[in-house]
Every structure is written in C-alpha cells, then in structure tokens.
C-alpha cells in the first residue's frame, strides 16, 4: 500500500484507542481488497476527515 494509506502517520493513528483510530483502522481494512478507484476514493475521504479533525481543532483553539 502506498500514498497516504501506507504512511507511518496513518499506521500510528490506527493504533489509537479513539474514534479517529477506529476510523483509520476501518479505512485500512477496506483498502485491503479495494481496486484503484476505490482506493483513491478511500484516500480522499480519509484525507477529508483527518483535515476536518485538524481544521476544527484549529477553529476551536
């Protein structure tokens, strides 16, 4: 797995005992049997979600 889903940051997030960690785990599981289109969609969706986590944190702080 390459790109965002293969990154160390994602692997680290997947080990978190949190909603974010469970989310990353689910994406990685779905990516296992995904074709290239589905993989791209998963990456885009995960990127959007993680950016929302970050962006909203920025708003709040």
């Amino acid at each position, binding site marked *: 797995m390459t790109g965002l889903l293969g990154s160390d940051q994602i692997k680290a997030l997947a080990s978190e005992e*949190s909603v*974010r960690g469970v989310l990353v785990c689910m994406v990685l599981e779905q990516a296992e049997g995904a074709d290239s289109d589905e993989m791209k969609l998963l990456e885009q969706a995960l990127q*959007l*979600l993680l950016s929302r*986590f970050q962006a909203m944190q920025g708003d709040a702080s």
Partner: protein
Amino acid sequence: MILRSIEMESFGKFHGQTIEFRRGMNLVIGPNETGKSTIAEAVPAVLFGTDRLERYKPWGRNACSASLFFEGGGRTIQVKRNLVTDEVELVERDDLYQPLSQFSGKAPLRGRSSSCREYRELLESLLGVADEKLFRATYFFGHQPQEWTGDELAQKLRTLVSGTAEVDYADILDSLLDEHFSLTRSNPWGRDKQRDREYEDVCRELENHGPADTVPVFVEIDDSIENKGQIEALSAELVNDRLEYEKGLRYVEHVRSRQTTISEINPRTVVEAPSAAGPAGPDDICKQLAAAGLPEDPPSNLVELLAAAAEIRQEMSSLQQPYAALGNREKKIPGVPWTALLSVSVLLALVTGAAWWRQLYPLPVSVFSGTVVALLSGWCGWRFKLNRKARAECKTERGRLDQKKSAIQQRQAELSERCEALGLPSSPIDLVRLQKLVSSNRELLESYWARPVAEHSVDDVAVHVEPRPPEQIEAAGSVEEDAPDEELQEMEARLAEFAAEINRKEGRLQKLSRQLENLASSRAAGTGGNHTALQKRKHELESRITVLRKAINLLAGAVDEFSRSHLVRLNHEAGKLFAKITAGRYAEIRLDENMVPSVLVDRRRWMPAESFSKGTVDALYLALRIALTKIRDDGRTLPLMLDDPFVHLDQRRLATALNMVDLASADGQLVLFSHNLELGKRAARERWHVVPLDGSADDTRTSVEGGEHAGQLHLL
C-alpha cells in the same frame, strides 16, 4: 509507570531545578504566575516537542531544555529534549541501570523523518502514546465549567473519544452532512429533498444547453440574423451572373476573332478588358500583386510550378506510411534466444556430467539432454532463418523506398532550381504559402497574365508568347462583317459593367461571409465554453459528493464500531470508579451512542446526568475521564495532570471533588496543580506529596532537595 521527576535545566522561569513526584496524589501549589502551568506543559513539550518555543525559552538565552524521568515495572525511562534544536535523548534502563533501549536524534513536533518515526515508535511502545493531541486528550484535565449545561458533558466526552483534545466527532459529521446537503438534494440522510441544490441546477442547465457537439450554431445564427438567407440568395445570383458573363465573353471573343487582323489578334486582350478585377493599369496590378504577397512579376508557368511542387509534396507524404509500416515490421521481427539456448545447454551438460559422475541413469539423462538441446537448437535455427529472411525483405523494401525518395528529392531539387531561376522562393514551405496566395488571388494573376505581351517584363515574354495555331491564323484572314466596331465596343462596355456588378456582389458576399464566420466563431466559443465549464463543474460536484458520502459513511461506521468495541468497557470501568467515589450509591453508568451519560438509580431507573447535582456530575465526569485514560494507556498508567480543575467549586464541593481525586489516585498517579493554598492543610492531613511554588527558584530547589515530605513541612 509514574512520573518520578521533571528536571528543568532551562525551561520558562525555571533554571537547573528538579521537581519530584510520587505515586498517588501530588499537589503542586502556588499563587498565580508561579509556574504551575509551565511545569504541566513541560511534560508534553519534552515528550513531543512544542510549537510555542518562545513561551518557554528564557528571555535573553538561546537554550531551552528539560528532562523527564519515568519509573515503573523495574525500569526507568529518561527523556531529555533540547527544545531549541529538538534533539532528544531517550534511554530505557533496567533495575541494574543497564540500557534496554535508547534513542538519540532529532524529533520535532511535526517531523516526518525516519528519525522521528523511530522515536515515536519507541515512545508508543514504552509509554503507550506517541501523539501530542491524544496525550492531552487523555492525561490532561483542565478547568471545568461552573455548571454542566445541556449537551456539554456529552460533547466533552465525544471530544475525548474522538482522539483529540478539542474536536467533537459529531461536529465533524454535522459539517460533512451540511456540505453534502448544500451540494445536492439527493440526500440519503433525510432533510429537505424538495429544493434543488447546485448539482441539480448545473444538471438542468446542461440539459437546457444540450450536448456540446450537436449545438446547431447556424440555427442560432439564423434566429438572430438573416445573413445566411442573404448569402444564399447572393451566391445563387452570382452563379447565374458568372455563367452569363462567360457566355458574353465567349461571344465577344468570337466576334473579335473574326474582326481583327492577325497583328491585332490576341484573344487574351478580350478577356482583360472586362476582367472581374476591373480595368486597371499595369502598375496598379503589380502593386496589388505586391500587396497580396505575390511576386510583382509572376511567371506565367507559376501555376504549373506550384502544381508540380504540390505533386512532389504529395508523393513525399505518401512515402511516410510505407516507411512507418516498414519500421513496425522491423520491430516485430522475432529475435533468436541464443542466451537461453546456451544457458539450457550448459545446464543440461552439467546435469549429464553429474549423472555420469554419480552413475545415476547416465544414458537416459544423456539422451534426454541431447534431445532437448537438439530440439532447442533446431527451433533456434528455424527462428534464425525466419529472422534473416524477414530482415532481407525489409532491407529490400527499404532500398526501394529510399530509391523512390531519392527520385522525389531529385525532382524537388530541380524544381527549386527552376523557382530560384525565376526569382521565386524555393523551399517547400514557401511554395505552399505561395500556392495559397495564388489560389486566393487567381483573378488578379489572370488579369496580369492577360495583359498584352508588351506590358510583361522582358524576361517573361518568352514564356507568354505562344505560337498561334495555323487554323487561327487562317480564320483571322476572313473578318466577319455582320457586327460593326461600334456594336462590339458597346458589347464590351456592357460586359465591363456586368463585370463591375459581379465585383460588387462578390464584395458584398465576402463581407456577409466574414460577418457570419465571426458570429459563428464567437457563438461557438461562447456556447462551447459555457458548456465545458458546466460539464467541468458537474464532474467536480459529483466527485465531491462521492467523497463526502464515503467520508460520512466511514465516520458514522467508525462511531458505531467504537461504541460497540469500547463503550461497554468504558461503562464498566467508569461505573466501578463512580461507585467507589459515591460510596456505592451509584454503581452503574451508561453512555448511549451519542455519548450522553445516564446513571442507574436504586438499581431500577436510568436517569440522565443533568438531573444530578453539580458535584455528582463532576464526579461522573472524573470517573469517565479516568476510565477513558485507563482504556487508552493499556495498563501503562501515565500520570493524570489536573490543572486547577476545581477552581469554580465552593468549599463543600471542593472537598467532595478532592475525595474523588484522592480515591482515583490510589491506582496510579495524579498531579494536581492548584493556586488554592488551603489545599495545603488537606495535603498534610492526607499525606499527599506537595510541591510548593512561590516564584522563587531557590525555594523550589530546597523543597525538592529536602526529601519526599519537604513540601508538606514547608506548608505546615
């Protein structure tokens, strides 16, 4: 694992000071601005780095460093960080002080290097946390609101389980749904599906436009202007006029040929007078030729030369396809796998040799090897023959094509020489350009060539003077008498007028055609551009909607999964702690899918948290926080840092809250930072470890160096 000490060489207002902690309850006490928050912040700053270095770097110094010492399970972990350079040294030692694992290198807060990765992996394995935000969400417990109102408690809990300190996953879900809802009415999650959104508007607009490639540009032009009808009528008129004009020309030529003498006969002069270009002097025509980009003195065989050039170009271009086909054919010629044959032969020879040496079926092995090598050699030979034959054919074909190409190039060279001799450009590109100019100015050129020979340049005379056919000379001898000169002149004048009329009509036709072309191109550009933009926007919206739907489903699924996998354990752990804090009065806690807590009362009724007193809700929240921390740290139990969490509580509630905290600390380590000096008495009574801060660095050092109970003595 407990935090044994924080050593601040140079961190904020602390220089060379060490703050020690113990298992259980620790109280860091002091008035405002004495450095309580700085000590609390030193923990994540050393572990993960900080982006607020200026806040902790002492004024006037370019140094900022601190160390943390953790202890537990017969191991010690020391983490030292230079916050200016982000150089980190981490050493894990056993009880004999032997290093078990260590790291030394740069690890900034948002670093992505392999060094950072290695450090975070080690941190994760040793302390169970490698993310600063998750650490804050798990181990930091800040000021609490004076009253929990409405959904506040649930929102705070949702934020904590989200994995960050300040983000509520429900807010993210809502923001994604809002964005999806703003793009399309096709909404699987309910809400208003009646009103069209941007996606539906774009689709409808695209339908109104119709497909881009079938946009009938001319139909639209017909609707807006009537140019096309005028053009068609004018074109039809011109066709008829030209036919009539040619008839007239032929008749006049016929009459003139009968009237004029041999010396006066030059049929081209008849053409010249009523020419479509109108009567013009030789200088005017030359000027017009020059203005049109043509040679001022075009040779009469210009058209023939250009036709020859076009033919050469066509022949040259017709060679491209055979050359390309030949190239492909050459590429497809199969090669001969000599290397494979050699390898297999060597291998089989080795096998055969081994068989003979070992006497393991030497004869069958030899026969088999020989057969295989023979077959392979035969196959390779056959392929080699095919290969050689195909290459020979290709070579012959290439030679034939080269020969043809040379012949064409020779003709091209001859043509270039002829052109240069006539003062014409010789390159193929210039000849193509010249041919276009000749086609568009054919009438002008014909007028030039139709002029009497005397008007032509001396060089050109040889080209234009053609020997008259004998029959024409004979016919010229008998002049027709039935048409007098006046009548002929009148006919010529009428033809000239007719030619002028045709010229005017042609001018008008050209003008209308130009208008039509401009209009068509502008309409096509406008309509096509708009259509393309709409298509692009539609694709963008579709792609965004797809990503949003996927993200919403993923997050909703993750929340469900988290609820299934974690909530039962969280409820259980929090319930145990809550029962301890409330002396068994409330034994069970339940969190629903929205993280809204309720408490079991009298072992019968579930009551929402907001129906309890503030003290009970505080206790509930603390129990949930500690339970969540316990689940997250997977038994490694880092200290929970409470930074004045009970600042809003009155004395009675504060006492209750401190009881809770005291009870909660029994299983691990709590560090309570407070400005309330009254807590000192409680600390002495409960034998908490106290770290007093009064703004003096020396005092802090003394209290630490004075032993485990020095803080309490100081306060007492």
